[in-house]
């Protein structure tokens, strides 16, 4: 087999003074100021609209947000000066908007305040962002830890099996009053592993193997075997834990990264076919999933049965109530959705109170984040970096699609967290790490090439 420990070259030497590559750190700072301003104004507006006066801790909130943004910016400025200037501001804006929405929903659930926790988790997320940007000088280091990554990922995913189920899914670890979703971290580790493995073996995967017919070639089992096994194992564990959203994500991630590495579209088609069969089987035999598919096909069936609107129906009502311009922050009734309003259904609040315009803006922000990720992948010169950037961008894209499509009735609903927006500590922290890695990757991608090109 091939070595995963590709030789890590030293960081490229700093460009000579007056080099042409623009760093765009000023742009980033300006955008960050805008993102912080929007979040603080949103925070103030929610206070005014729901209680009639400005929220008490507004000054602290604003200071905290400014400090976090500045700190993150400094880390990027010092350690990743060539990084894409859009990544950090988008993350700050999305996280800020999420906090505004959670704070707004807290008003309707006085017994269950979560904005404070979310703020702490966000702070931790920013701290980890700073740490990753500061300590990880070259993303290729990660290639060395591919097998460690996958081992840790599997352990993380297995742990919750030993903890009691919450809402029918074994995906949380609870201790000391905190709940934690280790599967969230596993997705980064798995992306790192896939990227490293596929980068090391992609020639074998792309070119060898027995020809079946036309262009379809049997992928060499020797190479494909281990990664397929790990992927099946992780998806299997998730299915056992009934974390269908994440298993869907892992499946999509695997297919996308395999395709990027090999360009074998036939295999992707077969994979999708198998997935469709699997999904059909799960959807038919697993009552939990079955009911969600039913809900998706006919969201108002429960109303016709006289049981009142279900979660999805309430979510659709919320989106419908928002219309084009929305009811205005604090003026919606998305709390009718019930217990998942702050987590899985946070987009419904955005849709109801900010309208189609606001929701589209949020989705476009995600689109921009993903696009910037892909762009880093395109500009990178090492296959591991390219694959990792593609994988991380795809993780964000798939998550957004699965949850946004679910709550708006486009696809069956699968529980998953909207990156940055939804309430949930592990999700926020994980997404900050993803953005940190993308910052690191984009820095490498945009860094002026040293005079002597290192061999790929």
């Amino acid at each position, binding site marked *: 087999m091939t070595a995963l420990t590709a030789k890590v070259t030293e960081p490229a030497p700093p460009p000579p003074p007056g080099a042409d590559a623009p760093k765009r750190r000023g742009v980033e700072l300006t955008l960050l100021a805008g993102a912080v301003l929007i979040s603080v104004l949103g925070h103030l507006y929610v206070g005014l609209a729901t209680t009639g006066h400005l929220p008490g801790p507004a000054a602290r909130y604003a200071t905290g947000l400014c400090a976090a943004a500045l700190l993150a910016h400094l880390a990027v400025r010092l350690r990743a000066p060539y990084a894409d200037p859009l990544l950090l501001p988008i993350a700050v804006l999305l996280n800020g908007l999420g906090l505004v929405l959670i704070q707004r929903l807290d008003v309707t659930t006085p017994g269950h305040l979560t904005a404070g926790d979310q703020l702490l988790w966000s702070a931790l997320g920013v701290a980890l962002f700073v740490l990753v940007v500061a300590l990880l000088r070259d993303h290729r280091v990660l290639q060395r830890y591919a097998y460690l990554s996958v081992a840790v990922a599997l352990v993380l995913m297995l742990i919750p099996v030993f903890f009691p189920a919450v809402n029918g899914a074994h995906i949380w670890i609870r201790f000391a009053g905190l709940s934690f979703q280790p599967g969230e971290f596993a997705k980064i580790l798995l992306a790192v592993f896939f990227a490293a493995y596929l980068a090391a073996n992609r020639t074998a995967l792309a070119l060898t193997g027995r020809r079946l017919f036309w262009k379809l070639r049997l992928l060499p089992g020797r190479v494909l075997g281990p990664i397929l096994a790990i992927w099946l194992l992780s998806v299997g564990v998730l299915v056992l834990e009934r974390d269908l959203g994440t298993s869907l994500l892992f499946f999509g991630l695997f297919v996308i990264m395999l395709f990027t590495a090999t360009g074998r579209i036939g295999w992707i088609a077969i994979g999708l076919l198998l997935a469709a069969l699997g999904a059909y089987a799960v959807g038919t035999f697993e009552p939990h999933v079955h009911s969600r598919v039913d809900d998706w096909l006919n969201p108002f069936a429960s109303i016709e049965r006289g049981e009142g609107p279900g979660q999805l129906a309430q979510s659709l009502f919320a989106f419908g109530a*928002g219309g084009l311009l929305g009811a205005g922050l604090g003026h919606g009734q998305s709390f009718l959705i019930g217990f998942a309003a702050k987590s899985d259904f946070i987009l419904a609040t955005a849709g109801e109170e900010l309208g189609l315009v606001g929701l589209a803006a949020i989705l476009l922000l995600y689109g921009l984040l993903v696009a910037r990720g892909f762009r880093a992948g395109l500009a990178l010169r090492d296959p591991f970096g390219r694959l990792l950037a593609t994988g991380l961008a795809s993780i964000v894209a798939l998550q957004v699609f699965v949850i946004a499509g679910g709550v708006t009735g486009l696809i069956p609903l699968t529980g998953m967290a909207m990156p940055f927006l939804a309430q949930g500590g592990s999700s926020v922290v994980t997404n900050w790490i993803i953005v940190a890695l993308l910052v690191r990757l984009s820095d490498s991608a945009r860094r002026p090439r040293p005079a002597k090109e290192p061999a790929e």
Partner: protein
Amino acid sequence: MIRYIRWCAYFCALLLIALLVNIARVQVWESAAYGANPANKRPAIERYAEPRGDILVDGRPVTGSRDSGQLLRYERTYANGPLYAPVTGFSSQTYGTSFVERAEDAILSGTDPGLSAFPLWYELARGRPAGGNAATTVRAGMQRAAYAGLAGKRGAVAAVEPATGKILALVSSPSYDPSVLSGTGTKVKEAWTALNADPARPMLNRALRETYPPGSTFKIVTAAAALDAGVVSDVDAPTRTPDPYPLPGTSTLLPNAGTGCEDASMADAVQWSCNTVMAKIGVQVGLRGMVEAARRFGFNGEGLRVPAWVSRSNFDTDMSQDQLALSSIGQFNTKATPLQMAMVAAAVANGGELKYPYLVDRTTQDDGSQVRRGGERSLGRAMNPATAVRLQDLMVKVVENGTGRNAAIPGAVVGGKTGTAQHGVGNAGTPYAWFISWAKAEGAALPQVAVAVVVEDASADRGDISGNGAAAPIARAVMEAALATG
């Protein structure tokens, strides 16, 4: 690999486009359908998020709002609910609204565009103006007098101002307290079920929505028709009417309640309520003439809106001569609401001109500035002015020296007409006691008030039941209240 990364990016872009198209579908296309779904609580939450405007009587609110702390926040309260229920109706979070609560809902709930000088401002600010108020034409003193007069007996009172059509009192008895229906939950549902199951039908607005045979009070319409048509030119001239009167084309004999009706003049016939004379006069006027006269008084109309809708009062348009004879004395299929009979009295009192009755004087914004004024409208001329003057004299005689003496008020000119309406199979039911009247303070140019009272089940001996015994004292009390307050 670059090519495949691009493809992945395009794939993600496709997902994003799918999401955007779908949210546009949900938020623009389906938005109205979702909003109209009965399971969607948003319209109700918004509707009850602010206190409802008030309904005013004599400038003072007879309604209120209570913060229930529930999802549907403000509930309706009623001061003196049973007294004003026929006016206000109910405003229930479970069962909707009725009467003025319904007719002026847009004002009271704050959705009327007239409540804001700049409707666009609220559109932009995502707010809503505070609910406005609806000032009624009802006078508290008269309303109380009518309600106390009925004293829980089944019946109704309608009083109008003849010159304007303002409804001064509107009472139905037995009544109910609309506040028991205000909120949500099992208590409200139980109250609703109980009210609907009650054989006394307390939620029925007898003044506007129940039609009764008007009995002898209808003789005013017949007399007006006869005078207008010239069938009777001298009210004091004796008519050649046998007692009892054989109904034309049949062998049935129509009797009188009292004596002295043989060949009586129309004046005496009104004064002593002679069935025979008035039935014969009705036949002489003829079907077309009688139908036309009844129509001019408001019978067979499209249905009034005061602004709550009023049941249609009926005078058959296709009858044989004997049926016409009975209809002319307010029997057979002739049916009238108490408000309709108050309008008959008011037309006489107002010199023959009939005003459109109305209940809401003006609607105002929260701060009292006017939104709309309930306008006076004419319903047309019910009779010639000369006819009205002669009928006024006849009605005054009824009270001064006829069947309606219980309505007399010292120091005032009062005209009235009693009625006792047979009903039920074979006339087996307890007769309805009617009294319609108007009153004018001494020296006033025009009568201030016209009243109709109907009592369904006066718990007196059947023989004693008459307009004069059961209904006239109530009418008098209402008229006294009207004259007292001006």
